[in-house]
């Protein structure tokens, strides 16, 4: 961390062109706060008052002059704007101002924050555009984090909360005109929302699923290269990556012959491949006549069969449960079958038909026991209905006897 700090400080110096020692100290004792009525800045800048009373900076006692300079104890414009007054900082100036504290490990340590944001930002496409090319389309700190109302990312109202990150990035990346200038697509946000990751984040509130920053990085935002995609996905999908690497596709991806995970799944959409589309997907690269499509068809058959077995087992369990039979054992077997099915989904990335067949057998043996139990129950139910025959035979003969007798009495 220490060599990094020196490096960062040097960077700050080059970016801002001024000494870090000139920055205002972050902590003062006995100071006026923007909430106080005698605090000078908010007499005119009343619109900023509410914004700056909340958020992490206000909680830490950081006041307007920490970034903007000037003298909050003055109530008139001219004396208040004296001193190292900054006013509204530009994009590069903002970067310098934030980095004054946020690139300083000694100040960040107490909050458990890293101080490498600026260093990371310089490596990102955003940073390259802003710092080296001076391109004002590129975002600076406040474009993503807000200028005054900065909340921790655990706060659901924060721009950097997992559910808000896609919209935060989308402010620019959803803008077709702006992205068109750089030859970038602008449909990432829409595709992400509909994809497996987007559904997990927005619908299931599963914040373990990645948002934009999960794959691209936040301050060091860059799209991963083709060679890196498998590693990026493999950070979460560990077992899939292992299975993939063991198979022929993985070996080809390792020497950059093909595109890793992106060969079959899209990057922002992250769709699952439907079980009945596996062979077609193989054919889309290998050609319909290829030997590989035959293998793909066999894999597809295994997956589809296992899925069908599971569906039938679910129906059998529901049927038994609706009749009031205890189904704990069957549910336990179902979990065993489902575990094998999940392994099957993993192992298919290695294209090893032998392993797939073995797992398919495990699914089948467990589900067939469930189904045979259900069939025995259905047979019992059928036998119950046979009771209707003696029941109505007795009832009708009784009624016939009685009504015969009644008619006789009536005469």
């Amino acid at each position: 961390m220490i060599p990094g700090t020196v490096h960062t400080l040097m960077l700050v110096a080059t970016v801002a062109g001024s000494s870090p020692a000139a920055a205002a100290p972050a902590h003062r004792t006995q100071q006026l706060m923007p909430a106080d009525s005698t605090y000078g800045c908010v007499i005119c800048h009343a619109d900023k008052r509410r914004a700056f009373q909340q958020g992490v900076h206000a909680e830490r006692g950081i006041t307007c002059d920490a970034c903007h300079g000037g003298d909050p104890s003055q109530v008139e414009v001219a004396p208040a704007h004296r001193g190292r007054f900054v006013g509204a900082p530009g994009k590069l100036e903002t970067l310098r101002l934030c980095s004054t504290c946020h690139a300083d490990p000694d100040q960040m340590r107490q909050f458990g924050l890293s101080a490498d944001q600026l260093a990371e930002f310089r490596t990102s496409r955003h940073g390259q555009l802003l710092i080296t090319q001076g391109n004002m389309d590129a975002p600076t700190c406040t474009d993503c984090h807000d200028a005054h109302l900065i909340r921790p990312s655990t706060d659901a109202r924060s721009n950097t909360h997992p559910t808000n990150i896609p919209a935060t990035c989308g402010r620019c990346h959803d803008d077709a005109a702006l992205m068109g200038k750089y030859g970038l697509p602008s449909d990432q946000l829409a595709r992400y929302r509909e994809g497996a990751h987007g559904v997990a984040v927005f619908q299931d509130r599963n914040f373990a699923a990645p948002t934009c920053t999960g794959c691209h990085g936040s301050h060091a935002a860059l799209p991963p290269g083709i060679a890196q995609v498998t590693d990026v996905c493999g950070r979460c999908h560990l077992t899939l990556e292992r299975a993939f690497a063991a198979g022929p596709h993985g070996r080809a991806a390792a020497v950059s012959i093909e595109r890793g995970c992106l060969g079959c799944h899209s990057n922002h959409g992250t769709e699952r491949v439907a079980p009945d589309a596996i062979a077609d997907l193989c054919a889309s690269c290998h050609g319909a006549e290829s030997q590989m499509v035959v293998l793909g068809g066999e894999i597809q058959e295994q997956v589809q069969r296992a899925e069908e077995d599971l569906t039938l087992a679910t129906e059998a369990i529901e049927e038994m449960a609706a009749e009031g039979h205890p189904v704990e054992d069957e549910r336990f077997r179902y979990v065993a079958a489902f575990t094998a099915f999940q392994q099957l989904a993993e192992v298919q990335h290695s294209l090893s038909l032998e392993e797939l067949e073995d797992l398919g057998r495990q699914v089948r043996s467990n589900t067939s026991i469930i189904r045979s139990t259900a069939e025995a129950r259905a047979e019992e139910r059928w036998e119950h209905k046979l009771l209707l025959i003696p029941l109505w035979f007795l009832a009708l003969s009784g009624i016939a006897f009685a009504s015969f007798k009644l008619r006789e009495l009536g005469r």
Partner: protein
Amino acid sequence: MLRRAFQATKRIVSDLWYDITSSVDSSLLGSARFLGLLYGPIDRSLRINEALRKSLKYRLAPHVGWRHAPGGITYLLFMVLVVTGVLLALFYRPSVEEAYPSLQHIVSVRPFGWLIRDVHHWAANLIVIALLAHMARVFFEAAYKPPRETNWMIGLLLLAVVLAFGSTGYLLPWDQSSYWTVTEVMHAIGHIPVVGRGLADRIMGDVIPSGATLSRFFALHVIVLPWIAFALLGYHFTLVRRRGIAPPMEQPEEQPRWRGSGLFRPEDLPEDGVPFFPNHMLRSFIVGVLTLAVTLTLAILFPRAFSAAADPYLIPPALVSTWVPVDVSLALIRLAGSWGLVLFGLLGVSLLIVPIVDRGPERRLTKRPVVAALGIAFFVGYVALFAAGRIMGTVPPSASIGGGMEELPFEPTRPETPLPELDLTPPAPSGEPVPGGVR
């Protein structure tokens, strides 16, 4: 050959019948007597034999016929419920943890447990229908008029008891369907203006149906209500005997004969009456056998499905009611709102008041337009509301709060087809709009 066999069978049957009829006059209790039960001091002091023979010889007025059957059917179904209920109580355990598993045990392990349970369920439904049919007959035939007005009141109390039996028994399976239907019924009670909410909480003993509710519903169902029902039934039947059966509608009420005891005196017998034995006995036999056969058939063919064990945290996406009054109240709340429920309840209560107001000797329906209108509104309304509730009634009103909560299945798709459009708009980013503001 065939004819001879038929003749022989016929002769045997008629001999058997002669034996039975002849033994009735002398000693129907022959077998009991044979066992020595009715000889000696018991028979001499209580005169059971004499009482039985008297009641068998009892003559009913000639107009008494098939339309008087629903009352008997109601009683038969009540006895069916008592017997099956006792059998169920042997294995049922009234606690949140054990209620559902104990029912699974009854249905899947106990011999004929499945039948007992479903007969209990179906008899509970059919008894409401039989009871209302009996009530409609009494109402439209003006059988509630003096001197039988007390019995009409008792009958209405018995209706309330039967409905209370149903509402308390409904919770006992403690599965999702029963749990949320009782929640619905409690909501319906909560819809009663002013007092509703507090009343519902008192009934449940909690703010939602819980273990406290299960305990008190069980106690009501198997201890409190049966005693009330038996007491009311005893009173009901006694009054039927003392006041007699109402004359036909065209005929005005004759002078009431106030009998000193429940037993008839031979001089009271209508000259043209039909004796209870064997005529009415045979009719009762036919009706009883049919009732039992229908109940058993329904139980065998349409068992009540088990839903998952009750879970207060999981609102089912759809509820299918399996008890008649639930459909009725559901239709009322949906179609007419909470005041509609109250008004229909008041209409039911007005039937209680009718015998107090309507005491004239007129018995023909055309001469009693107000009463006829009230009765038609209630009985036809009940049937119509039941049908309406049945048709509309799968999703309870309270399930709407869970509208967004049910899981949307994740549909795997092919890479090139887009996923179905879901409304996943994230909340607008908070704070003031920044870009540009700072620049």
